[in-house]
């Protein structure tokens, strides 16, 4: 169980960039959790690889957000949470919005 949880997963963008992130981090996104979760019987969860129809530059930001979320989700009040907004380049904001909606990161906000 813990071995599995420590595995990495590979997210592949539409322009063939691969992003390797820890599985628990990937599971923060609802859509990825459905694809990669232990309950799902998709080939993605067997190979721990997802092909996503998202451009690399956008997917990179998605991964960055997931790591950011992993890091700051459970901090107490004393620690200041940096504003992720500053890290989003305006030129990809719209694409990122669509990608975020697709990955349903909102559903697992907690």
């Amino acid at each position, binding site marked *: 169980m813990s071995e599995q949880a420590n595995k990495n997963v590979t997210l592949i963008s539409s322009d063939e960039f691969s992003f390797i992130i820890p599985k628990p981090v990937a599971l923060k996104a609802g859509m990825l959790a459905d694809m990669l979760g232990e309950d799902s019987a998709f080939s993605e969860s067997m190979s721990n690889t997802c092909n996503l129809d998202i451009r690399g530059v956008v997917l990179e930001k998605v991964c960055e957000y997931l790591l950011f979320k992993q890091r700051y*989700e459970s901090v107490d009040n004393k620690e200041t*949470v940096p504003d*992720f*907004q500053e890290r*989003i380049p305006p030129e990809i*904001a719209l694409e*990122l919005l*669509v990608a*975020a909606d697709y990955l349903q990161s*909102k559903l697992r906000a907690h």
Partner: protein
Amino acid sequence: MSRRNNNNNVRGPTSALTSFLREQGITGPTGDPYRRQQREIQQNPPPQPTTSRSPIPHHRSDSEDLDDDPIQPSLKRQKSNPQIEQDDPYTAPSKSQSSSAGGVGSKTSCIECQSKVIITKYTPTGPDGIGVLCPKCTSAHGIDPFKQAQSKPKPKKPAQKEKRIAPKVESSKPLSSLADYSIKVIIANIDYVENLGEIGGDATDTIAKVLSKNRSLNYKTVQLFLGSHQDTLSLYDAANLNPECLKSIATLCPSISRLKIAFAGQLNNDVIKDWCLRFRNLQHLDVHGAYLVKSDGWIEFLNTIGSSLQSLRISECPHFDQSSVEAVGRNCKKLNVLSISQIKMENQGVDHLNGLKNLKNLEIVQVEGNVTSEAIVNLLSNVGQCLEELNLSKNSDLDNGLLTNGIRLYCPNLRILNLNSCDLIDNSGFEDLFKQWNNIGLKQLDISLNHVINDKCLETILNKIGPTIELLNLNKLKDISKDFLLKIPSMIPKIREVDISWCRQTDDSVMKEFVETCPELIKITCFGCLLVTKDCTRKPGTQIMGCPALTM
């Protein structure tokens, strides 16, 4: 005066306000030493005993006063002058005390070493709470005078408060989602963004949907979609757009031909009259939830724009009433698509629509008021010939007459029929229609929630439409037997989507029959079919939706 103060002094601490103020550490400027003593002895002594307690009473000298006292006299005067003040008990003892002995600024001697001490706010009391300590003895006892002076009333309370607030703040501030962050960035840069016209219809529509889903469509984000060359505008959640903003849509996109606006809670008469003047090319209009547009607004709008409209969809607009429907009938002769749902209308209203000969799609759904079969039959006799889609669902006053005298006779070209939740239509009505209907073949049929339909009736229906049907909704036809359910798949070879939710007898063998027999089936919905197990047959390309055993 002093007597009154003494009395007050006795009474004061018993009142709720007084004790509350004391707890909060609110006190007269000289109160500290006195109050500490007072709390320790847990009673309310008049100034006298207090004075007697301090070892050697001294008279105050003016020069010693200078440090702490300069404000005191005026304060005391202010407070004692009204004489009704609740603070009296506090000002009074401090006054009597500082003037006699033991108060701030007075001289006394240390309880330990007998050296002279000038009492200040920070002078600590002796070990037993009696007398005072000089600075030397204070440090010898390891007491931090500054800490002690402030500590007793204050630090406890704020600390507790902070603790109580902390979890609340934490729970009310979860991490924002990535979508929220993106929207913030978009809003921050909205002035630099050209509108999305060039991106392409699909992407624009997706972004509009996502923004609406996040309830972030406001006067800023809506700018993404506005532009003079825009042809289509879909606002899926216009609840946050105020009338001025809605007006600006018509100003900025005057040549728009397709407008969809949902949850248009702030769309009012003013705006819609403004739209009449500005939209030059509006052909397709879909409005949902425009509660504020009154009947006269709709009529004026339809009189001006109606003649060019090709499709009109109105839902949840309570003021779109019979007279508005009449305006539709009078003006909108080009209409191909008319959909009115959740509005108020009677039979006469339906009659106004008789002139719309070009209608291909007619939806009259969930009308409040008594719309009966006769009126609809009359309407169909006029417009039925071209109709391809007919949706009369959720009208509880329609009966078998609609099928026998209306649809059967006048609607030969119908491809899509929706009659869900029409409670008065029963088996004989459906049998009449489907036995003798000269129809070219239905593609979609929705007869869900007509509880009474039985095997024989459904067999008649499927015999007629089976070869052509692609989408079939049998939701809640609870009386269909398992034997017949097993027969259905072979009767509907072209089926693509089927809904057999709440057909009680559906089990694994029925599912297997559907999945294996229907080659083009892509979706089968089976909510509430408790006999279907996890092991039911599945195949790639066919989606099983709602199966209780699979979702648990």
